[in-house]
Every structure is written in C-alpha cells, then in structure tokens.
C-alpha cells in the first residue's frame, strides 16, 4: 500500500498571476516500512511534495493514492480528516503549533480531533510522550515554559499520539544542537525499527541521510532527479549536478585514500570507517 504519486504536477500562483511549477509530473511510490530521505536545494519542491502526502495540497494535475484513498477525492462524501490520521506530517519548527494549557492536553489534541474519548486520548498521549522521552512530571507543565528541544518533542508526540502508519517529517533536526539532533534521529530510527512505521524525512544533513535512510530521493526543480540507495548515490555520474555534499566519513575515506593510499571502500558513518581502518591496519 503506502503512497503512490501518479504523474503529479502542482502549480503555485505568483503575484502577477503567472503560475510557478513546484512539482513536475512526479511518479513515485513509497511503500510500507520504508525509511526514505528526501534531499534537494531550497525551492526544489520537497515541502510541496510532502504536503501532498497527507492531502494538505491537492495536485493540480495527476493523482495521489494515499492508502485506500485517491486524491483528488472521487466521492465527495469521503472526509479528508481520516486520511490525515494515517499519515502524520510534522512541519518545520513544529514547536509553533503548540497552544494548550498543559503539555498533556496538547498531545491529546490530535487524537481527540479524530473522535477518541478523553480517556483513550490521554492513554495515547501518555504513550506517545514516553516514546519521545518526556518525563511524567513534565506533562502537567505549560508547553511554553520548556526548552525549544523539548517543545519539538511535544509537537512530535502530538503527531505520534494519532498513531499514524506513516510519519512524514520536514527537516526535524533543523535548529537543534548536535546532541538533540542525534537523539531526535535515534527516536525516528527506533520508531522505524521497533514500531515498523514508515518514515519519510526531508533533510539537508548528508550524515543523517547516509546513516539512517534506506532509500534516498533527490529533488531538483520539481522533479525527482535520483531515487535509490546511498551506495549508488555517491557513485553516480550526475552526483556533482545534484548539489549535495558527501557525508563526513565518506570524505575522510576519500582523503585517506588520496594521501595514504589506503584502498577505497564506501563507508557512511564514523563507526564504519573506524572498523574498516582497524581491518586494514591489522592486515
């Protein structure tokens, strides 16, 4: 199942009534239990693409199949709300969407909108809070009296409490310190491995991409320019044209290969590099 894009185009209307093509005939399938990273320059259409994944934007042309629903809706009676429960979308800087008196109530907002009773919603909220690593005692505090990193956890818990099958994240680590960013990514990896959630995330950080993503999409000018695994991405001929950086460990490996003539092997994380170097040294 998952999400299927079928020749999807989307136009934005400009100031002078000209239209600006944000997505250009995208055909794409995201299956269940995938971990997909979307990269690309600013303005390449990443955010527009993910907003189609939970029907926030309707395609100008083409169709999006979200689980059993087809967007634009054929049957006018189908509600759009339930579709959004399936695919949880976390925006950039999600901490701005908090509004309730207490953190617990804010996390409960989503499940309650989808028709759960207070009791059920509270249960789900407590589970989600535990999942993102929020302490029990913090739940009765105001969401405006905690640190920025904590606020982001609360916002993500608010989406997780809806128990979506797919979690779509727009630059979830932006503006976080390295430690916070690592913890955040570990959380998503846990959701993926332990809870079998499908994860789609937009990021510019190639270290994150190459460490976690099983599949990488690179977008440019509204088109998907690359779709494949990290092993292929850094070796493609067009890599230079994609305006991406290589991960740190990969660059270190290239440097060592050039200066010390250590035979080249694709490594993506510092740990991999270290084990490989130990291997080479022992030989």
């Amino acid at each position: 199942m998952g999400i299927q894009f079928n020749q999807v185009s989307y136009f934005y209307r400009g100031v002078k009534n000209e239209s600006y093509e944000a997505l250009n005939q995208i055909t794409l399938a995201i299956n269940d239990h995938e971990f997909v990273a979307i990269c690309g320059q600013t303005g390449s259409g990443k955010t527009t693409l993910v907003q189609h994944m939970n029907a926030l934007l309707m395609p100008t042309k083409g169709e999006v199949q979200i689980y059993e629903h087809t967007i634009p809706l054929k049957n006018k009676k189908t509600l759009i709300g339930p579709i959004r429960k399936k695919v949880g979308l976390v925006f950039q800087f999600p901490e701005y969407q908090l509004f309730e008196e207490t953190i617990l109530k804010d996390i409960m907002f989503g499940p309650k909108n989808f028709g759960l009773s207070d009791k059920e919603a509270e249960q789900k909220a407590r589970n989600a809070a535990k999942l993102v690593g929020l302490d029990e005692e913090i739940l009765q505090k105001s969401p405006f009296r905690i640190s920025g990193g904590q606020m982001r956890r609360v916002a993500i818990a608010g989406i997780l409490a809806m128990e979506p099958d797919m979690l779509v994240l727009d630059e979830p680590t932006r503006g976080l310190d390295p430690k916070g960013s690592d913890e955040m990514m570990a959380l998503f990896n846990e959701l993926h491995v332990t809870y079998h959630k499908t994860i789609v995330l937009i990021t510019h950080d190639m270290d994150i991409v190459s460490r976690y993503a099983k599949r990488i999409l690179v977008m440019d000018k509204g088109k998907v320019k690359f779709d494949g695994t990290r092993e292929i991405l850094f070796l493609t001929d067009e890599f230079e044209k994609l305006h991406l950086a290589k991960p740190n460990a990969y660059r270190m490996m290239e440097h060592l290969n050039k200066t010390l003539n250590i035979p080249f092997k694709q490594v993506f994380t510092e740990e991999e590099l270290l084990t490989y170097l130990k291997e080479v040294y022992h030989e």
Partner: protein
Amino acid sequence: MNNVTIGQYIHGDSWIYKMDPRAKIIALVLGLVITFLVPSFEIMAILLGLVLIMVISTGLPFMRMIRGMKALLFLLTFTFILQIFNIKTGTQLIQTNMYLSVSSIAAIIALIILYNLVKKRIKFRSIAFLSVVVIIFVLQAYLPFGQLMKYEFSIYSDGLFRTGFLLFRIFIVVLLSSLLTFTTMTTDLNNGLESVMKPLKVIRFPVAEISMMLSLTLRFIPTLMEETSKIMKAQASRGVEFSESTLKKKIGQIISLLIPIFIISFKRAEDLANAMEARGYVIGDKRTKIDIMRFAWLDIVTLCLLAGLLSLVILLNTGVIHAF
C-alpha cells in the same frame, strides 16, 4: 488566504514607481478629497474612468487587484439593496407587486440552501452570489401563490444614480489606496509619511514613531498571513478540518489557530525590536536618510493636475461652473 492583497508590494517599473513617495501620498489625499467632493453621478463615473485608465497605465495586474476586493462584495450588495429601497424620487423605472407568500418564501429558502450546498464547487463565486441576490427578488415577483404579504417594489432613477454614485465612490477609494501600497516599498512609504507629516512636529506629535508603526503594520500583514496558513496546515495535520467539523468543535479549533499566531506575532515583534536596536534605532532620536527624496517633473505635474482637478470640483460644488 491568498486573496488578500492589502499591504503587498508588487515589483514593477512603470511611471508610478518613479514618483516620489511624498508626491504619491499627497496625491492620494488630494484624490480622496476629490472623490468625496464630487457632486453628481456623471462626474463620479468620469472620475472612475480616469482612475481605471490610470490603474491600467501603471501596468499592475488589474484582475488580481479586482480579485483582492472580493471582500467588499457583500458590503456593496447590501448598500445597493438598501439604497434602492429607500430612495423614491426621480422618474419611476420599474414597478411590480412583490409577494411574500408561502410559495416564494419556500423557494427562497430552497435557493439559499442550494447555494450553500453548491457554493464550494462554483468557480465564479462572486457572480453566483450576485445572481442569487437577484433571483431572490425575481422569485418574490413571480410566485404569488399562498400570499401572506404584498408590497410594492419600484426602482426610481434617482435611486439607481445614488447607489451607483456610492458604489463608484467606495470603488475609487479602495483602488486609489491600494495603488499606493502596491507600488510603494515600505521604507519609501515610511520616509514619505514622515516627511509629509513633519509640520505636525510643532504640536509635539510623534511623527517618526507613528509613521514607523504604520509602515511596520502594513509590512507585516502578508507575513502574518503566511504564518497563519502555515499554522492552519500544521493543525490540519492534527485533524482540524474546518469544513468538516461541527460548530462546537470549530470554536475549540479556532483557539488552536489563534494562540500560536499570537505567540508568533509577539516573537516576531521582539525579534524585530532587537534587530532594530542592534542597528542603532532609538525612539525619538535624530536620524539621517540614505535616500534623499527629490521632487521630479513627474511629481510636480501630477500634483498640479490633481490640484487643478480639485479646484474644478470645488468650483462645481459652489455653483460657479455648471456641468450638465
């Protein structure tokens, strides 16, 4: 959300962009005074024609400007109906008997329900709205069965002229003022306002602060709109769908929009204040300008033209000159 065009600057390079902001502000004031002094419908129509020619000559996207005025539609229709009913002088144009009857009331209710049902799927919503208003009156005239009340409906020529006069006036005022904000950058607007209001400094009026406040307000309308639509999308992802929820739910959901927007605007204000202070902004202090405004021939000619027009209208009003 995207229909709101107030406070946006549209880039261009036609003659109006080359004008001095001070001249534009004075010209706007003169233009508004003229609009409110115009004595008759015919002159108002000529004035509207002139304004339209001017708007087209600036090369602004005309249709988009019109679309930005959709919000006025309801107000305009309302004034129109009130005026038509109230004024009973001049020659009679139409006279029919109107019936408030079982059949016509039922038909009107059915029509309104139908309109609300199909509203979302109509492309030209404003035209649909206007035609619904017209049909409501037609129905009253042609469905007399089961009569409850009968009244006379008549349109007089004066009524038509007076309403047209009012509509044109509102239209001109909105066009002129949006022309200023569309074609003047906020910094220019700020400088212009400050300079125009300088004489008020004599009575200790905080000219610089007021003009800064005004231009910041204008500048932040589109930004806040953008933030609002972002928050709306974020809350939509948490199950807030205004078109699909009950009234009771809607009230709770509006709070989920209002509070974040409040917080964002306060945050923005704080950031802005810090940024201004970091660049040495001190309230009430003397400041130099990077751009020195100069009146060009274009500005002088425009102002002279408008002053001439104004004196003409005043002369018409006082009866020195008779038109038509």
